[in-house]
């Protein structure tokens, strides 16, 4: 009798444990709003979430951040196309053992050669056919330390690095790092890509929609749960939000719902599930240090001191945006400075009146004052999310005798203008693909980076960036990261104003959504999502 009860209890327990798996339903099309036309479908060529969201489900990476976890961090990386990986003793060789049961959407087998040609294209090696895979390479700097990719066998590939770089694995786990098919040309990858991922591209109609269908031969058996995904391109935000409220769409575009809009959405669609999360996109001040009077470090220091971050957050995000230096602050950010350390940096102290008084005193020492203001043009991209903070910045700079005039630059030539240093000061937004110091510092502050728009160059900072990159111990590395943050702030190198927070909403029947809280770019595989209809 006792054994019978035990057997029944065991069976019930087994059922209880199995319930979550059984709960996932197969079928249905997820209708997702998309805010604009992706420039292309080639993830490696673009630097926008508009491309990552619809096309990440088409591909696989070697490794990925655990899609069930809310935070991306090096200890939460799981296998994808690679079954496992190992480092050499000197930490300069990273060998991946690849899956042998993977096929591209056109039925051709995936092999180590595909990995090699993808990364050869990214580091500018290989023949013309390989180079044709990628026409532009915005994340070239991620792979500066990657020297060679060697194929050991069809299921083994080794990455050789110039020096140890533990963060390489994090970069390989990003949604920005899919493995491309060697037998497909660049034009196809930009328009109707072929991948190994859970969904296949049916059509990419510009200005209209992107349709994906379930990959019936996906190597993760039983997945994905959805029959397909339809991304409807709806450029007008009011239409997008009204469409979601009316139930026309199942899920909003990532972070599309601002805090003022959130109240409307909750009023009109009370059952909608909405989640706020940091976007890891930060607004920052850019200063043309080659042009007078901003070639004077004192004046740059005054500008940094004049930034009062709380009003930015209150006005733009009802107080929800986050205050931090370059790295996303904790608790969402893994590498951000602690508040007590942050408050010691110029402009971050809690006594804003004191900061402004200090800035005024610097300006007065340089000959400026209420009767002699410094007239400047504050350049920014002519888009609302850029213009709005720029207007607040202009207002704040008035307090230190800087008379700013908004200079909205056509969005198409913004970066060219900045690169040509055809501005005095400006306001920019910068997103981080991965919450990792290598990504943030190499991309934006290292003198060799093509995305170091302001041309900031400090040999000491360059040295520290390389130094932190080689450190494996997290605590040790964080010390150097904090040192870099301090130097960047004191140098007024693109000082951060705020880290943005946005809301994403979905209908209650959409299940399995996990938004990661320190990057918006890495969790859009859609293979764990199902519809409970």
């Amino acid at each position, binding site marked *: 009798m006792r054994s019978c009860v035990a057997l029944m209890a065991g069976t019930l327990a087994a059922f209880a444990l199995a319930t979550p798996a059984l709960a996932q339903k197969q079928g249905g099309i997820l*209708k997702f709003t998309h805010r604009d*036309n992706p*420039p*292309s479908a080639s993830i490696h*060529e*673009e*630097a*926008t979430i508009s491309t990552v969201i619809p096309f990440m489900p088409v591909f696989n990476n070697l490794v990925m951040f655990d899609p069930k976890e809310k935070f991306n961090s090096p200890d939460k990386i799981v296998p994808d196309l690679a079954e496992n990986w190992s480092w050499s003793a000197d930490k300069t060789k990273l060998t991946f053992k690849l899956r042998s049961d993977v096929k591209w959407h056109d039925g051709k087998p995936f092999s180590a050669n595909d990995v090699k040609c993808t990364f050869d294209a990214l580091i500018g090696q290989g023949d013309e056919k390989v180079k044709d895979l990628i*026409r*532009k*390479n*915005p994340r*070239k700097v991620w792979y500066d330390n990657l020297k060679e990719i060697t194929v050991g066998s069809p299921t083994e590939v080794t990455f050789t690095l110039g020096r140890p770089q533990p963060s390489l694995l994090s970069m390989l786990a990003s949604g920005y790092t899919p493995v491309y098919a060697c037998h497909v040309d660049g*034009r196809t990858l*930009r*328009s109707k890509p072929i991948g190994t991922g859970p969904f296949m591209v049916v059509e990419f*109609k*510009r*200005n*209209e929609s992107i349709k994906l269908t379930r990959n019936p031969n996906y190597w993760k058996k039983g997945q994905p749960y959805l029959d397909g995904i339809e991304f*409807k391109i*709806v*450029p*007008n935000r*009011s*239409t997008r939000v*009204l*469409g979601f*409220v*009316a*139930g*026309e769409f199942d899920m909003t575009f990532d972070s599309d719902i601002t805090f003022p809009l959130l109240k409307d959405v909750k009023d*009109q669609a009370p059952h909608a599930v909405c989640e706020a999360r940091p976007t890891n996109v930060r607004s920052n001040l850019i200063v043309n240090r080659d042009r007078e009077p901003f070639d004077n470090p004192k004046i740059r220091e005054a500008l940094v001191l004049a930034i009062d971050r709380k009003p930015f957050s209150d006005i733009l995000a009802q107080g929800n945006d986050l205050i931090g230096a370059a790295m996303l602050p904790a608790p969402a950010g893994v590498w951000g400075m602690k508040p007590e350390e942050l408050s010691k940096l110029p402009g971050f102290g809690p006594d804003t009146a004191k900061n402004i008084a200090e800035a005024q005193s610097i300006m007065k020492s340089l000959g400026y004052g209420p009767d002699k203001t410094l007239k400047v043009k504050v350049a920014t991209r002519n888009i609302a999310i850029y213009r709005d903070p720029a207007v607040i910045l202009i207002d704040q700079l008035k307090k230190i005798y800087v008379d700013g005039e908004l200079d909205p630059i*056509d*969005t*198409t*030539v*913004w*970066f*060219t203008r*900045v*690169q040509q240093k055809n501005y005095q000061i400006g306001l920019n937004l910068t997103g981080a693909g991965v919450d990792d110091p290598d990504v943030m510092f190499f991309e934006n502050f290292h003198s060799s980076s*093509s*995305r170091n*728009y302001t041309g900031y160059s400090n040999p000491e900072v360059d040295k520290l960036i390389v130094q932190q990159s080689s450190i494996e111990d997290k605590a040790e590395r964080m010390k150097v990261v904090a040192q870099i943050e301090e130097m960047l702030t004191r140098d007024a190198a693109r000082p951060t104003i705020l880290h943005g927070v946005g809301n994403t909403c979905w209908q209650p029947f959409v299940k399995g959504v996990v938004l990661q809280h320190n990057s918006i770019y890495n969790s859009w595989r859609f293979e764990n999502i199902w519809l409970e209809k």
Partner: protein
Amino acid sequence: MGAYLTRRVLLMGLTLLGMSVLIFVMLRLVPGDIADILVDSAGIVDVDEKARIVKELGLDKPLFEQYLHWLGGLFQGDLGFAYVSERPALEEIAPRIPVSAKLALLALIYSVILGVPLGVISAVRQNTGLDYMLRVVSLSGLSLPSFWLALLILMASVQWFGVIPIYTNEPRSLVDEILLLSIPAAAVGFRSSALIMRLTRSSMLEVLRQDYIRTARSKGASQTSVNYEHALRNALLPVVTIIGIEAAFLIGGLIVTETVFNIPGVARFLVEAILWRDYPIVQNLVMLIAFITVVVNFLVDMAYMALDPRIKYAD
């Protein structure tokens, strides 16, 4: 008449040739080209990559050579390749034309069937309560921007009926399509109908004071006969002109309406192509609009003859 028609057709050809030069030159005067934008959209400014794209797209060739290449292709029905999608421009443009054409036609029908009869009623019932009401309606039609009206329609629809009349899926039948396009067409056509109504009213008022109307009345013609057979036909000349002009102007209204109602037509596509400096798309679409405008104007001129037998086009 034959010589007149030949002259008109030749003039139309010359106008279109002039337009092609204008479009081509003006597009290139706008700062930034597709290479700038492609590189900027990736947030990078790599000079080598930009140069490679410029070469690949043939933008490094002399302007005159680029122009001749485009024009030559146009005569052969080859519209070139869209820069952004890297597909033939014709494949990109062709499916969108019927969508916008149906929307524009529906909007034009709305504006005519509402504007002309209401204008006549307003004139015939001058200074009555009905006239005042129609004048207020027409004024609101002229003063309400179409994007605002479109948004109001969407908000009201969601609030009261819980549905949103936007284009999310391809309609399955013509009836479905007409139903789907009728609300956006009303939003676009409202302004035009107001304009047509006001013009019909003022034109009718002028005609109704003419001697021949008095003569018709004194001969015992019925009120309906006087209004519709004698007055309206003569009052229609300026109205037809404005309908012709409005048909060309509708494209402006369509840009906003297609965006708000999410309709995948040419107008929204054109704006997107301009933003991306997608020259093959912009050039060909603007040429198409110019062609339609020229043809509509020609048809309007021809319609004058049918409406007023006194008008003759001499050889």
